[in-house]
């Protein structure tokens, strides 16, 4: 898949709450095929503190509109700068980057997300329905109700379970505590997960104990995003240090040397 450098136009910048916003970007060219789990490298202009590009997962794609959306959490200077973009402004990106979530071998799928980690899962859910006619279920975790974002978009795709740390919405606790994970009658054949590393490790541990295949989306710090700088490596069982940006960001947890 050929990678492109493209300058897209900001069509919309929707602030969802105090932390999250969604950028809708449009290309003047036909979009390349973008797969769920892939990311873009965004150039942030205007500050010496935002020197490198920011890797951001694709939240949604609309080929007919030649547009992509990015769900972004304000985490530092770069993302704060991006949160201030207004319609009509331009954004330079490199895309599509990385591998993608693998094709499921079964249709009993659970997509577990935490915080902005829900972004690639929305895109994956839509793709699973459209491409394979599979209706996945979501388990999404947030700190509190006011941070739970665009839930209706997930509910449109499949049944959506929620946890919040303060109990203001759904089940109180972390995703890993949700009762569906302990429901003997519920069959789960594959888990796809994205979120904070500590959450993904807990999910991987759960999947491992239950002998369920589990794919995680890693968010390692990246220099280039195209496999040249070797900065974003993760240690794997078969191949030692490999680039998260080209061999990942999606890995089967059995490949990773995680202590779980």
């Amino acid at each position: 898949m050929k990678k492109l450098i493209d300058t897209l136009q900001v069509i919309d910048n929707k602030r969802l709450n105090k932390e999250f916003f969604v950028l809708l970007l449009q290309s003047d060219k036909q979009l390349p095929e973008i797969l769920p789990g892939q990311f873009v490298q965004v150039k942030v202009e205007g500050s010496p503190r935002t020197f490198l590009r920011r890797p951001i997962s694709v939240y949604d794609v609309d080929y007919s509109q030649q547009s992509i959306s990015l769900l972004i959490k304000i985490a530092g200077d770069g993302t704060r700068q991006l949160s201030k973009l207004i319609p009509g402004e331009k954004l330079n990106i490199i895309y599509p980057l990385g591998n993608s979530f693998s094709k499921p071998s079964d249709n009993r799928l659970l997509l577990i997300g935490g915080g902005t980690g829900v972004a690639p899962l929305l895109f994956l859910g839509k793709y699973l329905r459209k491409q394979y006619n599979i209706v996945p279920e979501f388990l999404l975790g947030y700190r509190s109700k006011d941070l739970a974002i665009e839930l209706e978009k997930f509910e449109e795709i499949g049944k959506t379970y929620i946890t919040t740390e303060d109990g203001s919405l759904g089940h109180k606790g972390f995703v890993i505590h949700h009762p569906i994970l302990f429901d003997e009658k519920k069959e789960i054949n594959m888990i796809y997960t994205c979120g904070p590393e500590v959450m993904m490790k807990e999910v991987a541990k759960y999947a491992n104990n239950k002998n369920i295949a589990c794919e995680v989306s890693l968010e390692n710090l990246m220099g280039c995003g195209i496999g040249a700088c070797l900065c974003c490596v993760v240690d794997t069982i078969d191949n030692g240090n490999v680039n998260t940006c080209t061999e990942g960001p999606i890995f089967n947890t059995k490949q990773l040397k995680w202590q779980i």
Partner: protein
Amino acid sequence: MADLITNISKLKLKNPVMTASGTFGFGTEYSDFIDLSKLGGIVVKGITPKPRQGNPYPRMVETASGMLNAVGLQNKGVDYFIEHIYPEISQYNTEIVVNINGGSIEEYCEVASKINNLDKVNAIELNISCPNVKQGGMLFGIHCPSAIAVTKAVRDVYNKTLIVKLSPNVTNIVEFAKAVEDNGADAVSLINTLLGMAINSRTRRPSLSTVTGGLSGPAIKPVALRMVWQVHKAVKIPVIGMGGIMNATDAIEFILAGASAIQIGTANFINPAITVEIVEGINDYLEQNKFKSISDLVGALEC
């Protein structure tokens, strides 16, 4: 089109724009973005005698106008390079320069003599300035007798163009440039990264697994430019300049300071097409300022 042909001793480049080792993989990583045949040369990722896993993650942190890295020469070793990578990259219509590394003089010589047998590689860059390995690397580049010894030994086993990559982490870089010139170097390239560190105040831990790392990017450009200028005045061999070059104007500045060729490093991460844009920008500058040849510009600084 101005004459961009650049000679680094016996190595003939179609233009002065090269890529810096460790920032350009083996070139293939960039073939979606640029026509590699438009480059003067590609300096490939550093090669060691045996495969190396490099340093643990995290290996990189962004800093103001730059980045620190501590990759630690992750590579699959010289034999893998010759067997699996060389056949592919030797097809490129540009000069391939192999950056060689070792933990001892013997190891440097082992890699250099193996690379000496490759028809399509006309130069090596002897890396005595990597700040991110425990053995070898910068230890050779910050101790003048060691720099002399390794240059001499590699010169004995390598008969094509020998470029020595210098460390800026010394009191007087000119002393090292002159020393390697006197002991067989055909050219010097400078600067490698500057030793630095970053701390995460939230975790109260260093940002890099190795605590210290190499600083690159525009943050180091004034230091690099000063060193290129000093070295150019002191040696007769060609100087290859690098350190924070982000655009054609930066490249021109290095050439005015005395660089015969330049290398683009960190800028490739931000704009993977920057190298070709810089080739075009240099040509535009020469035409606009009525220089017929790039060689007329080398060291043309008036001061």
